[in-house]
């Protein structure tokens, strides 16, 4: 799983995070280090689609939050991935 938008959605699933916190979190749970251009490219796309939104903050480090639509999209994507993972394991066992 290396789609940056999916990684950002998964990172925000357990709470609000700003850019650097997402970068660290994604590296910790997925072993993928997103570059700054890739991360903010994903954030820009997700915000345009309405899947994440900015949280008001006085800090320069603006946190982002998963929207209801974004959460639903993440659930659908993960369900699809889950099917692929299960099918892959099943076929490996029978091979």
């Amino acid at each position, binding site marked *: 799983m290396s789609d940056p938008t999916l990684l950002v959605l998964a990172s925000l699933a357990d709470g609000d995070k*700003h850019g650097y916190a997402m*970068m660290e979190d994604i590296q910790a749970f997925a072993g993928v280090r997103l570059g*700054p*251009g890739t991360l903010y490219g994903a*954030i*820009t796309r997700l915000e345009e689609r309405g899947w994440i939104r900015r949280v008001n903050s006085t800090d320069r*480090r603006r946190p982002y939050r998963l929207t209801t639509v974004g959460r639903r999209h993440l659930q659908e994507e993960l369900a699809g991935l889950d099917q692929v993972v299960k099918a892959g394991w099943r076929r490996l066992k029978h091979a």
Partner: protein
Amino acid sequence: MRKIIHLAVRLYPVRWRARYGPEFDALLEDMNAGFGDLLNLVKGALLMQIKWSNVPLLAAACGLLGIFVAALVLHATPRRYASTGIIHIVSYPSPGLPPEVPVVASHVFSDAALTSLIEHNELYPSERRSQSMADVLHRFREDMTYRVTPRVLHVSFTYPDSQKA
């Protein structure tokens, strides 16, 4: 590196920077960005320019990227220096070269003469440590050009060290 990265942020569209600029700067400060991040940032800026279609700035960004890549290639390419010797024969009465020239040339370019030149001038030190003298001689001959045209002998040698070349 930090200064270059902050300059590279300017490659992003103005409207994008107006929205994300301060938090993007904060991210770059927090993450202690390196060279790979700079490349990633430039790529991100180009994609954002295409997406937000600011054509003149995109052209300028492509130009800057081209200059940057050219500078990298130039920096990565090892420098080589060439020396050239030309012998122009003017007083020999018959057409073509005097018959002594090929004989002299075969002596000058013999394995023994070239080996002596390599050892005396300490050429190809790393190759001599890791390769046979036959391989080093082969390399030496590749770095030399020897052309004969009527009345003119042209010998050239390229080498990374300007003094030795």
